[in-house]
């Protein structure tokens, strides 16, 4: 039973059909992780007991595998009567896992803003919230755009983890074909090539945007 190229080619349309689920999971997880990561970083900067707790939580998230988090959410939430679809759980898991990394990105982005900006805001008697929203956040966005783009690619490459929760994204669809036909090599190879191509395309797009931002920053 060798590698059947015709069969491999015939699985392409079905697997590509699941690209929407892959991209949806990527984008929503990235947004969720950004929102959560930014919140974590603000709480961490606030200091005190909440700051310390979040600092530990970030370290904890970064020291544990994403697969363990996905299992945790997938099996623990129903135990407490929370029943959500596998896709939702998967997006929550990826958001939580990557928030630990994005918090560090936001930290670096805020640290890179000159201290005078904050002092100027204080001398204008802006509140802490207004300083954050109108002075810090807009300047931070340019600093974090490039690393955020890199994490977008990382999250894309983590979406096939959702196949383990039976989410019908590209790898999940490949496994569906495999279990129907008892042929694993062909659909998985197709999924592998498609994921590599998608990751390279998105990485290229991120690089282009990064160069544009750099160019506009120099002006």
């Amino acid at each position, binding site marked *: 039973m060798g590698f059947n190229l015709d069969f491999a080619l015939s699985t392409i349309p079905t697997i590509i059909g699941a690209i929407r689920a892959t991209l949806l999971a990527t984008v929503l997880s990235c947004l969720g992780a950004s929102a959560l990561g930014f919140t974590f970083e603000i709480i961490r*900067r606030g200091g005190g007991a909440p700051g310390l707790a979040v600092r530990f939580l970030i370290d904890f998230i*970064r020291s544990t595998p994403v697969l363990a988090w996905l299992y945790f959410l997938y099996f623990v939430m129903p135990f407490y009567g929370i029943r959500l679809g596998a896709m939702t759980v998967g997006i929550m898991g990826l958001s939580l896992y990557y928030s630990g990394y994005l918090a560090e990105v936001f930290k670096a982005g805020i640290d890179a803003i000159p201290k005078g900006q904050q002092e100027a805001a204080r001398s204008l008697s802006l509140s802490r919230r207004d300083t954050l929203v109108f002075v810090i956040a807009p300047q931070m966005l340019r600093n974090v755009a490039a690393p955020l783009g890199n994490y977008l690619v990382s999250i894309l*490459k983590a979406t096939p983890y959702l196949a383990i929760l039976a989410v019908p994204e590209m790898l999940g669809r490949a496994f569906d074909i495999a279990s129907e036909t008892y042929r694993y*090599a062909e659909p998985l190879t197709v999924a592998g090539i498609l994921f590599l191509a998608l990751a390279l395309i998105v990485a290229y797009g991120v690089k282009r945007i990064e160069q544009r931002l750099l160019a506009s920053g120099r002006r």
Partner: protein
Amino acid sequence: MSMFDIWLGILQGLGITLEVTAYGLVFAVPFALVFGVAQFVTTGWTRFLVTAIIEFWRSSAVVVLLFVFYYVLPVMGVTLSALTVSALVLGLNTGGYASQAVRAGLQSLPAGQREAGMALGLTRPAILVLIELPQALVAMSPTFVNNLIQLVKATSLVSLVTLTDMTFRAKEISQTEYDPVAIYSALLLAFFAVCYPIALAGRWLEARVNPHKGAQRGI
């Protein structure tokens, strides 16, 4: 089953987790050194080929890569144990990431280092081994520690190709005990116990290698 029994049950998988990590390093370290240096010294088509090989291992989703190699190699007539395939895939994926740190470390050295070597009449390989690599590897050592943590966390994937690591043990225990909160918390804690000390060692290294960084703190 008490919380303690669950912990002990999961720790029975620690051996496999560490074995895959160690075996993975056997692939990762040589790959990172050889390909990182190759990308630094080569030009033209050779460099394109080297970059393509690195990008294959680095830009592919590691979940998909593991399944592809696990199912495709036997079809091609190559039979490897699940342990070897896992170590190969996880190791070369990590090696791909680490190779970029090796290359970046070499590129960031001032040209004067190489020129001084040339002025002393050293050959190019001697300059590389005696002058450039030692400095680049020390400067990049915190990144290598992060790569190691990523490798340990990625070993959770081997539970999907029948190896009885900690993640696999957690799933086994959850088949006989309905206590997802205790089981999956214990799994997360077990990984934290392995990875967090490595992360702390990495921070200590970072403080030694880059003493000027990390002093600033805003807001």
